[in-house]
C-alpha cells in the first residue's frame, strides 16, 4: 500500500538527525504584538507567546491545550514562520531554522505543513479542490500533470473519490469533506511534520471522530509527526502521545498524555481537567473549576501568571516566576509551579513537608 503511494507522490525528505534527534526543538520562542494603547500615541504589547520551549520527537503527536487567547495559534504560526519570531530559536532535525548553516525557511515549509481550523476559508473558493491540493507540488517544481496526479492520489488517501470530488468547488463540500481536502493539501508535498491548528474543532462530533481516525492512520502510513493544537481536552487525550499546556503565552505543564490526565501537576491543568465533564466518577479530579476570564496578555500578572486565579497562590508566586524545569526525554513530566519546585519557598513545595 505505502509502496504504491511512494511511486506517485513527491519523494519524502530524508531523516538526517536519526531517530533520537527530536524533529523540532523550540527554545524560548517570544512574539509580542504591538497594539494601540489607551492614550494618544501610546503603545502596548500583547505577549502572545512569551518564552515557550519544547521538543517534538519524531513520530509522536504533541497536543497543545489551553484556553482561547493563550497563544496556541500564534505558536503554530511561529513554528511555520508565517509570522516573524520576536526572539528565540527553532531547531529542525538538528539544524537551526533560518541560521546561516541551518535550514532555510523555504526548506522548513517543505517539511512542515499546516491544517487550519476554518475549513471553509482555508480553501480558495474559486478553485476546484484538486487544484488546491495540486498547488503545493506545483509550487515545488512539479509539472502540472504530475501535480494533478499527486492530488488525485492524496484525495484518495483521505477518503475522497478524486473523480467525484476533484472537480468540485469548496462550497459544494461538507465541513468534514473540506477538512479532508485540507489534510490532503497539507500532505501533498510530503511533509515530515503537520501542525493541526484546531483542525477538528469546527466539525460535528461524529465527523470529528472520523477525521481523527483518518489523522491517526495517515500518521502511521506517512510516518508523520503532529503538533496538535486544540482547546478540546477529550480530543487531545485521544490523539496525543504527549501534552503541552499553555497559559497566557507560557508553557505551564508538559508530559506524557496519560501522566497529565491521571496526575496533573499544575493547578491550572487540574482546573482545566476539573472543568470537563467526566462519565466516570472514579476519574473525576476534585479541584474547584477556575472562574472568570484570564488576565489580559497585555499586562500579565507578575511572578506566576496563574496566581490571580490559583487557589494555592502565596507570596512567592507573586515575586518569582516559576520555571518549567528540565525535561530530558519523552517520559519527562514537568510543571512550572512553585509547589513542584523543591526549595522554592512555597509552603506546599515538594520536599518541604
Amino acid at each position: 500500500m505505502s509502496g504504491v503511494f511512494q511511486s506517485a507522490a513527491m519523494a519524502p525528505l530524508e531523516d538526517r538527525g536519526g531517530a533520537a534527534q527530536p524533529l523540532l526543538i523550540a527554545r524560548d520562542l517570544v512574539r509580542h504584538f504591538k497594539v494601540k494603547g489607551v492614550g494618544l500615541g501610546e503603545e502596548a504589547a500583547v505577549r502572545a507567546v512569551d518564552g515557550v520551549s519544547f521538543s517534538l520527537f519524531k513520530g509522536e503527536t504533541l497536543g497543545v491545550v489551553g484556553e482561547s487567547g493563550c497563544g496556541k495559534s500564534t505558536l503554530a504560526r511561529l513554528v511555520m514562520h508565517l509570522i516573524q519570531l520576536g526572539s528565540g530559536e527553532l531547531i529542525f532535525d538538528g539544524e537551526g531554522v533560518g541560521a546561516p548553516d541551518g535550514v532555510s525557511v523555504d526548506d522548513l515549509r517543505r517539511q512542515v505543513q499546516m491544517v487550519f481550523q476554518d475549513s471553509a476559508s482555508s480553501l480558495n473558493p474559486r478553485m476546484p479542490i484538486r487544484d488546491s491540493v495540486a498547488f503545493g507540488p506545483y509550487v515545488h517544481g512539479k509539472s502540472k500533470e504530475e501535480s494533478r496526479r499527486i492530488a488525485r492520489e492524496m484525495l484518495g488517501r483521505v477518503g475522497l473519490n478524486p473523480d467525484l470530488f476533484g472537480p468540485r468547488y469548496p462550497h459544494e463540500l461538507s465541513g468534514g469533506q473540506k477538512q479532508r481536502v485540507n489534510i490532503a493539501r497539507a500532505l501533498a508535498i510530503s511533509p515530515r511534520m503537520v501542525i493541526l491548528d484546531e483542525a477538528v474543532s469546527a466539525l460535528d462530533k461524529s465527523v470529528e471522530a472520523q477525521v481523527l481516525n483518518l489523522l491517526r492512520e495517515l500518521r502511521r502510513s506517512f510516518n508523520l509527526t503532529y503538533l496538535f493544537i486544540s482547546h478540546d481536552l477529550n480530543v487531545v487525550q485521544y490523539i496525543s502521545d504527549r501534552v503541552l499546556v499553555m497559559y497566557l503565552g507560557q508553557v505551564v505543564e508538559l508530559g506524557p498524555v496519560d501522566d497529565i490526565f491521571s496526575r496533573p501537576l499544575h493547578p491550572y491543568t487540574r482546573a482545566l481537567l476539573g472543568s470537563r465533564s467526566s462519565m466516570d466518577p472514579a476519574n473525576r479530579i476534585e479541584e474547584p473549576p477556575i472562574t472568570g476570564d484570564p488576565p489580559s496578555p497585555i499586562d500579565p500578572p507578575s511572578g506566576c501568571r496563574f496566581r490571580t486565579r490559583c487557589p494555592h497562590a502565596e507570596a512567592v508566586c507573586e515575586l518569582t516566576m516559576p520555571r518549567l524545569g528540565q525535561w530530558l526525554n519523552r517520559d519527562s513530566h514537568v510543571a512550572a509551579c512553585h509547589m513542584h519546585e523543591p526549595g522554592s519557598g512555597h509552603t506546599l513545595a515538594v520536599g518541604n513537608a
Partner: protein
Amino acid sequence: MTQAVATSIDTSWEADPAPAAKTRTYWQSVLIRIFRDKATLIFGTVVLAIVLLAIFAPLIAPFDPYKESIIGRLKPFGWRGHPLGTDELGRDMLSRLIYGARSSLLMGMVPVLVATLVGGTLGVIGGFAGKRVNTAIMRTMDVFYAFPSVLLAVAISGAMGGGMMNGMIALSMVFTPALCRIAETATAQVRSLDFIEAARATGARPLTIIRHHVLGNVLGPVFIYASSLVSVSILLASGLSFLGLGVKPPEPDWGLMLSTLRQSLYVNPIICAMPGAAIFVTSICFNLVSDGIRSAMDVRQ
C-alpha cells in the same frame, strides 16, 4: 466490526446528492444566468449592434461623413436620400452618427480598460503588501478622489490641450482611483483568509500566490465595477468633446456634433437633438448590461 462501521460511514459520504456531471465552474454558471436574463440579453444585443455599427461603419454608412454641401445644410429627414437629414455643413447625419459610434465606444472603453489595468494592479499590490506600501498608494488615490470626476477630467484634458488621446488619458486618471480602491478592498479581504496563509505555508512566492489565489477572487468585483464605468466613461467623453476638449472637428463624434449643432437650435431642433439620443441609448444599454452582469455574478452559490 468497528472497521465495518467506519467503512459504511465513509461510503455514505461519497454518495453525495450532487452528481459530478453537474459541477460547473463559477464563470459557466454566471454565463448561464446571463442567458436566462431576457432584459440583459436584449440590451446586450443592442450593445453588440452598436459595436458592429462602429466596426463596419464604412460598409454601412450610406454617405461619406465628411462630404459637405453648401446647399444641403440642416435639411429634414429624408431630404434627397439623407434618411436623417443633414447637419450644419450639409453632411449626412446618419453616416455621421454611425461613424460617431467609433469615438464614443473607443473613449468609453479604452480609459476603463487602462484604469482597470493600472488601478487594479496598484490595488492588488497595495492590498497584498499592506502597511506602508498600501498607505502610500491609497492616500495618493484619495487625492484624486477629492475631485468631482467631471472636474478632474476637464482639469487634466484642459491643461493638456484637448484631443482624443489626451481625453482618454484624462479619463483613465479619473477612473483609476475607484478601481484601485475596489481591487484593494477585495485583495485585503482575500489576503486575510486562511487559504492564502496555507499557500504561504507551502512556500509559494507572493507573485505565485497573487496569480493563483488572489486574482481569481479579485477579478469578479473589479470586473463588475469596471463594466458599470463604461457608461460613465461614454457620458464623460462626449461631455469633453462637447466642451471642445475631446475629439476635434471635423471628426464625427456625438458630443462634438451636439456642440456644433447647438448653434442651429432654432433652425432644425430635431436634428440637433439626435446625437444626444445616440449617447443616451448607448450609455443606458451599457448601464443595464452592467446591472445584469452584476446580478448574475453577485449570487452566492
